[in-house]
């Protein structure tokens, strides 16, 4: 069962061949047995999962099943879960139990899905390797057979590793600069970052509010569509969510791709990309040509400024978003503070990890009097130019394709002492967040036995088209079916 997709499991449950309780128990057993190798979960909620599975079986017996009723899955530990601790990968929230659900959490609950637990992540979603988690690094299931310990990518490294290792068929994730797509690429699974505003951010712990977007990680594009069907939609609790009709994303998966206009941004096929990686991506594009798509080169002239702009805007927003972790109302508090300043400084010095502190400092600096114009305002101007690049590109083509990452999964510890090199991991993904457009990463081959991701970028609210393009590719390739040994 653990190799089946959400869509397949849904049919199994519907046919009555297996109950949700049985299915859930199987996944829980596997999770308990296997996850010591990956450390992809921070919290496993066995009792709650079995109770939910029982309720799901009753729901199905009553004839009220949705495609998600009784399906085991996991939440990234950034989504607040009522009554279940939500750590965001941080010591600061090690014992934090929210008394409310995120809207995304609530949506899955209402759909009858069975959450097995909370997946590991970079602390406060800041990282590209999952090594900044207070709960330890996650190991990529790929490469383990050769004795290599590689990163799963980040920040949604736990979700991507868990799906790749078949511990769950699907997991929620979030993407601020590439945190869904990069780990999906490095773990050989399929991930979708929707248009900014498509999925409610309520109850999703903020890193950089104008960039954060909840999304999906699963093995197939079809499962991504099933996830987005549950996640997408206007939420009155999130003023930045957009009031736009939600289509059935599975309805258009089988549309033919004939005539699809693909653009290849020349800036994303540059020196940073190894010839082996490039070959895999070009081969994938050739598959699309076989499916009737046309291909042309396009330009995103300001894309090269994306990392610099991002590392001003994201830390600036984060520096304010993380001020609430002050030891006053909830979360970590230092022992015996001698006065207010001591409470603040020691709580935050002890509660936050190195990367989080680095970004708070960078953001605070960028917003400071005398630097604001040169950093924050300038970065916002660059952001508008980058948005315009995408708007212009989508006048010529329907989707853009590129590698998701410049290279496959790197070794644990390889880049931890060099933040700038680490930041370059997101060189092909970050501009998408600045523009707010949707994008996917789809498995598209291997280099040295490690998965390679193809990034497909669409215009605002074109998730259906992206899923259609990814699904059609997965009908003629089997990269997404490969299982790490």
């Amino acid at each position, binding site marked *: 069962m653990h190799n089946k997709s959400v869509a397949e499991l849904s049919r199994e449950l519907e046919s009555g061949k297996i109950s949700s309780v049985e299915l859930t128990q199987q996944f829980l057993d596997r999770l308990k047995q296997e996850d010591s190798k990956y450390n992809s979960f921070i919290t496993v909620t066995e009792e709650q999962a079995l109770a939910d599975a029982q309720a799901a079986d009753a729901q199905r017996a009553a004839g009220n099943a949705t495609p998600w009723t009784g399906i085991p899955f996991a939440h990234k530990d950034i*989504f*607040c879960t009522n009554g279940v601790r*939500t750590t*965001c990968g941080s010591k600061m*929230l090690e014992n*934090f139990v*929210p*008394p*409310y659900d*995120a809207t995304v959490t609530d949506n899955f609950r209402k759909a009858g899905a069975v959450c097995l637990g909370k997946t590991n992540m970079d602390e406060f979603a800041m990282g590209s390797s999952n090594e900044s988690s207070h709960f330890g690094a996650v190991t990529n299931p790929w490469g383990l057979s050769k004795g290599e310990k590689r990163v799963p990518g980040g920040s949604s490294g736990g979700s991507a590793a868990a799906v790749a290792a078949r511990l769950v068929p699907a997991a929620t994730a979030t993407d601020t600069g590439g945190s869904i797509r990069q780990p999906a690429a490095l773990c050989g699974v399929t991930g979708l970052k929707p248009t900014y505003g498509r999925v409610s*951010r*309520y*109850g*999703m*712990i*903020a890193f*950089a*509010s*104008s960039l954060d977007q909840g999304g999906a990680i699963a093995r197939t594009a079809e499962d991504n569509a099933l996830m987005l069907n549950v996640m997408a939609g206007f939420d*009155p*609790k*999130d*003023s*930045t969510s957009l009031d736009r009709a939600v289509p059935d994303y599975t309805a258009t998966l089988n549309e033919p791709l004939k005539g699809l206009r693909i653009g290849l941004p020349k800036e994303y096929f540059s020196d940073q990309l190894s010839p082996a990686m490039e070959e895999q991506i070009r081969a994938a594009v050739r598959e699309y040509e076989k499916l009737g798509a046309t291909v042309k080169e396009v330009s995103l002239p300001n894309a090269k400024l994306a990392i610099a702009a991002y590392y001003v805007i994201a830390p*600036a*927003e984060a*520096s*304010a978003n*993380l*001020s*609430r972790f*002050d030891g*006053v*109302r*909830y979360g970590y508090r230092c022992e015996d503070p001698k006065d*207010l300043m001591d409470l*603040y400084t020691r709580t935050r010095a002890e509660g936050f990890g190195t990367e989080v502190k680095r970004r708070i400092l960078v953001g*605070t600096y960028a*917003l*400071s*009097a005398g630097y*604001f114009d040169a950093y*924050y305002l300038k970065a916002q101007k660059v952001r508008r130019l980058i948005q315009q690049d995408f708007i212009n590109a989508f006048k010529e083509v329907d989707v853009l394709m590129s590698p998701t990452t410049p290279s496959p999964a790197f070794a644990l510890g390889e880049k931890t002492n060099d933040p700038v090199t680490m930041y370059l991991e997101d060189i092909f993904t970050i501009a998408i967040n600045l523009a707010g457009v949707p994008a996917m990463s789809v498995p598209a081959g291997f280099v040295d036995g490690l998965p390679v991701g193809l990034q497909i970028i669409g215009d605002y609210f074109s998730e259906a088209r992206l899923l259609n393009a990814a699904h059609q590719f997965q009908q003629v390739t089997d990269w997404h079916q490969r299982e790490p040994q």
Partner: protein
Amino acid sequence: MQWDIVIGLEIHVQLATKTKIFSGSSTAYGAEPNTQANAVDLAMPGTLPVPNEQAFRYAVMFGLAVNAEIERRSVFERKNYFYPDLPKGYQTTQLERPIVGPGYVDLDLANGETKRVRIHHAHLEEDAGKSLHEDFHGMTGVDLNRAGTPLIEVVTEPDMTSAEEAVAFAKKLHSLVTSLGICDGDMSQGSMRFDVNISLKPKGSGTLGTRTETKNLNSFRFMEQAIAHEVERQMDILEDGGVIEQETRLYNGDRDESRSMRTKEEANDYRYFPCPDLLPVEIDDAFIEDARKRLPELPDARKARFREQYGLNDYDAGLLSGDARLATFFEDAVSHGKDAKLTANWIQGEFSARLNAEEKSVSESPISGTQLGDLVVRIADNTISSAGAKKVFDALWSGENDNVDAIIDAKGLKQVSDTGELERMVDEVLAGMPDQVAQYQNEEDPKKRKKMLGGFMGPLMKASKGQGNPKLFNEILIRKLSD
């Protein structure tokens, strides 16, 4: 040396919305600590602000009432600082694009002149919670009930030149926001708080001096005292050849002292930037027109109407029209009591004195406008004397009885106004006081004669058991004595 005083004000006005500016929690005052703070107000992780449309409507109504431009696309910013009663570690406020742009308010000064005070802007923001420093064994308690209450901060140009003008402006603003119904105006509960910027310059000089800011004054009286105190402090320094340091000061009204809170060098860098959780607020023509339709009669218009409709003089009309609730009280009373001048006198006399004595606001008054009106009717038609009326007023106020006529009956306060009976009493009393009658009739000085009349009133009131109409007694007396 002669000095010009330059004063500008920043006024925090709590908006009377039912719920907070970015959450659904109640804003009602006085609840148990932290019972009106939900996950958003507590800044729990992942929670997000949702703007309260009513706060925007109130801000726009204020803007229209002070003749201001309304910003069509106003932006919220985060003002970053750490404090235990500021749950998010930043205050959501407006800086670059406040919702209300430049406007003005005209003041009627005591000397009959009109003074225009310009409004620089007014912006929407959220209030912080309260830190409670007493009763916690050396620790500080935090109450977040107030956190997220909507405020508008009104910032004036430095157009005021005396404490009197500043207080007149503050009172006018109080009158405006209460008339608009956008603020309950209850200063004792912090519904309006004043920061005063003061500087001095040599008389006639075109260059402004260095200013100080005195923060968080919550009564007109403290504001007046604080200004006088600060002007004197600055004058002393300048006359001694010193320089004023730009700083924020705190004034202690009970001791008439002030102290420095922080200097310019110690000022926070608030690192303002646009709040990414809130989209810019688009205000369209329809919203502004809707707000305009909701504008009630404003104090200036009401004052003019009171003069016109009730024949009140400028002073009475000004006093009664300034406070919306007092104006309503007056109109309730006069609709029953008819006699506007007498009604006005009672409101400004007995009624106001009693409110002040018990530190009550008009809305807390135990008697209603219509009850006062009923009382005025009985005074005007001579049913009761003014002394009797005070007794009726006391009974109404204490809640002993809520019906004016029932009180008059129960207490036997009805005056005897039957002239035949009164004449008989006068005849009897005068017959028993021949010496005094002769003395009166021999007196040439009208002033002294008038005084001597009082000597007959005592026995008359006694004869009538206190129920004789004194006005009629007086008339009859004068007539009989001059016979």
